[in-house]
């Protein structure tokens, strides 16, 4: 293994980092909004709950790669789509990959939010009602903070999961870290060096995110400042 090749490789691969991060952030944001909508739909009516259930079943039961290919290739089969205003967007691999990542993330995130919203114990909600909190205050001061703390570890795993999943965007020609690595391998035939270097980049990113989420978890833990210590101060 020669050192010059490796030293040249690192900046080449890192040039795909902005796209990887962009896809991760946008898919988490979009997925989060859709996940909230799904939870609203679920709370709204029984039919809505069924629709949300089916959505989650559909996107969690099939591979993301297939979802990306379906969104990227399938619209071309229908002439009414090809002649509509959405076609210029749906022809773009970036739009298709991001859409698939968002829709996929929403299915997983909606389940995390659902579990979080059930975290508030009945006693805490009753206490809030008895204490005279309005429904909105209750949501803001009791249900949401407990839900957030409860959902945080699972959501941390979802963040790193999406970070890794963005690598699939490379199969529809996007030049993220994995896409650049594949292109590099087809030029140099040095699969091990190139893919290992790319793997290290992802590993560093995932470790940083995991560490950040753990810090946040510790900071938000009730044991950090016991109530007695707070009232004494």
């Amino acid at each position: 293994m020669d050192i010059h090749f490796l030293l040249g490789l690192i900046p080449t691969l890192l040039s795909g980092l902005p796209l990887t991060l962009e896809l991760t952030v946008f898919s988490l944001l979009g997925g989060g909004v859709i996940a909230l909508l799904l939870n609203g739909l679920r709370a709204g009516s029984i039919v809505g709950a069924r629709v949300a259930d089916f959505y989650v079943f559909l996107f969690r039961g099939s591979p993301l790669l297939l979802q990306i290919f379906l969104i990227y290739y399938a619209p071309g089969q229908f002439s009414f789509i090809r002649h509509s205003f959405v076609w210029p967007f749906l022809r773009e691999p970036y739009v298709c990959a991001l859409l698939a990542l968002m829709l996929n993330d929403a299915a997983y995130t909606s389940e995390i939010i659902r579990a979080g919203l059930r975290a508030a114990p009945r006693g805490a909600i009753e206490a809030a009602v008895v204490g005279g909190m309005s429904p909105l205050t209750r949501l803001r001061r009791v249900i949401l903070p407990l839900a957030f703390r409860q959902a945080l570890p699972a959501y941390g795993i979802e963040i790193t999961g999406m970070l890794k999943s963005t690598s699939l965007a490379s199969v529809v020609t996007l030049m993220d870290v994995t896409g650049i690595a594949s292109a590099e391998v087809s030029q140099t035939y040095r699969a091990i060096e190139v893919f290992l270097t790319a793997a290290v980049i992802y590993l560093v990113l995932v470790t940083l995110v995991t560490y950040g989420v753990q810090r946040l978890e510790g900071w938000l833990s009730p044991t950090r400042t016991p109530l007695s210590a707070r009232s004494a101060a």
Partner: protein
Amino acid sequence: MWDDLTLLGFGAMGWGHALFTAATTTVAVSACAFALGLAIGTLCAWAKLSGPAPLRRLAEVYGVVLRGIPDLLVIYLFYFGGRQVATTVAGLFGHHGPVEISGFAAGAIAIGLISGAGQTEVLRGAYQAISPGTLEAAKVGGMTRWTMFRRIIAPQALPTALPGLNNQWQSAIKESALVSVTGLVETMREVGIAAGSTELPFLFYAAGIVIYLIITSLSGLVFRTAEWRAMRSQMPARAR
């Protein structure tokens, strides 16, 4: 569009047989990967719980690394990296030119390693949920380690582990779609071929989604039945 549905059938013009064979390949790759993952998971869970320090460290590093790398890169590494190694080794023996390796084997090993990292945590959690009193009783009763594993640990840990193992199995099926990049003709690759040659991408990619949904739902049902049976045998013991 409805005329096109005959293309999914088992007739002379239909892709039914090809899709069915591809679906069995998907199940076969996933099953091999899951079995490998179970073996690795058991070993690593043991290493993390009561192994010697170097082995414990190794199991920890393995878990962090495999959970920090995209699945696609792991498969690329095993397939293209494996080919690179095989070609180099063959070169030492005087064989020139690239050496092909099996996409099935590379894919199953890659997904097996990913699955193993997840299964380690599932099995470790299930072991820790066993009430320590039963382990002490078994030790005091003079059971050998193997008898203890067979009669005390496994029957108590397995029912707890089943939901987690089901999750890992579902992940393995979905990850197996990535093996299509090696050219192995499993479901993902076959629907891609069909979509290309019939120029009906929506029909075949949608059919692919349905095939995966059938596989994941049916096998999920098997796991839930197993869970129910395992729990049923534990219920009276707990009530007593």
